[in-house]
């Protein structure tokens, strides 16, 4: 097809495709495979990779975090957990309620410090303006300090 017989508004890719239909088919197939591969990898990363491992902090950041954690106060954290309203959805001993159980054995501090700024689901955001990273380190210390609950299999009322 001669260029002068094609409508002026047609783009470069469309023109190339019309000139070389076989090549266009192959390229289109390759593009489709590439896009599918990218989507599949992204899907796998989102579903199978925990955010904490995807958000691994750098060495200096890890050192600073350890410093925060060691100077963090579980006592102060317990006060914050109440005063900042965490207990309302997560329970007074973080056992869960409207929201999930948070302790003992909490998710990593680095994850918590990111998540509460942009939570998903029903949880409202706690921005840096209202709750600092140090506050969260204290809350984390409180969560770590909580005693273990008994296992259901050892509780007669929770067995038939």
């Amino acid at each position, binding site marked *: 097809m001669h260029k002068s017989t094609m409508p002026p508004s047609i783009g470069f890719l469309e023109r190339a495709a019309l000139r070389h239909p076989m090549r266009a088919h192959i390229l289109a197939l390759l593009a489709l495979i590439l896009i599918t591969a990218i989507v599949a990898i992204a899907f796998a990363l989102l579903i199978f990779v925990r955010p904490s491992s995807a958000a691994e902090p750098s060495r200096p950041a890890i050192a600073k975090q350890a410093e925060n954690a060691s100077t963090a106060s579980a006592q102060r954290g317990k006060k914050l957990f109440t*005063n*900042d*309203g965490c*207990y*309302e*959805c997560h*329970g*007074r*001993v973080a*056992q*869960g*309620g*409207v929201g999930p*159980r948070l302790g003992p054995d909490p998710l990593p501090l680095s994850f918590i410090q990111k998540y509460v700024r942009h939570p998903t689901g029903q949880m*409202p*955001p*706690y*921005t840096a*303006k*209202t*709750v600092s990273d140090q506050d969260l380190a204290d809350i984390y210390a409180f969560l770590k300090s909580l005693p273990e*609950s*008994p*296992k*259901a299999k050892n*509780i007669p*009322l*929770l*067995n038939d």
Partner: protein
Amino acid sequence: MYQDRGAKLAAAHQRTLNENRDLAANGWGASPISTARLSAEIWNQIRNEDWSLVSNCQFVNRWPLRLWSFDKYYQYIGGEGGYGVGYGAPASVGAALANRKYGRLTVSIQNDGDLMFAPGVLWTAAHSKIPLLIVMHNNRAYHQEVMEVQRMADVHERGITRAWIGTTLIDPPIDYGKLAQSMGMHGSALISDPNDLAPALREAIAVVKSGEPALVNVLTQPR
């Protein structure tokens, strides 16, 4: 084919029950008492009776629906439909009245804020001798409102430590046992140790079986 399907459903049901039991163990010994512990203790006292739960369990994380075994139509009242406030207490008394002629053991897990909309219904239950076991879910708050005000404060980044103002029932806390007694019905002391639940429930159930309403005041976790 149906047996096959039935077997699969039964297995799925058991898996879900096991998961719920594992979750119920969280905070099992806590004070204030966890709503899972409360629900499990009530179940232990009523499971062998002709029981009927006449309160919506949304505010106790649906623990009765997750832990108990329901196989009769009259065992659950469901919700108020339109997110009505203060519906629970009058509805439970009405349902208990309907259950009376069948001799059913009628139980409600009563939210404290809900009761405070129309607490006079306790007098109705006493005056008309309507047998009803009221177990308070006393988290000392209009807690749904506490959470909503908290959400607004958090979103607006302002006043996040003040959601308790005008939404909590503290200072002083209300004594629901004495409230019940003032209306002419049995009311317990405040139960804040989960190990004290069983005897308090047994005592109240004895009153209810004799044909009168009874209230057990339990200090509970917020949800």
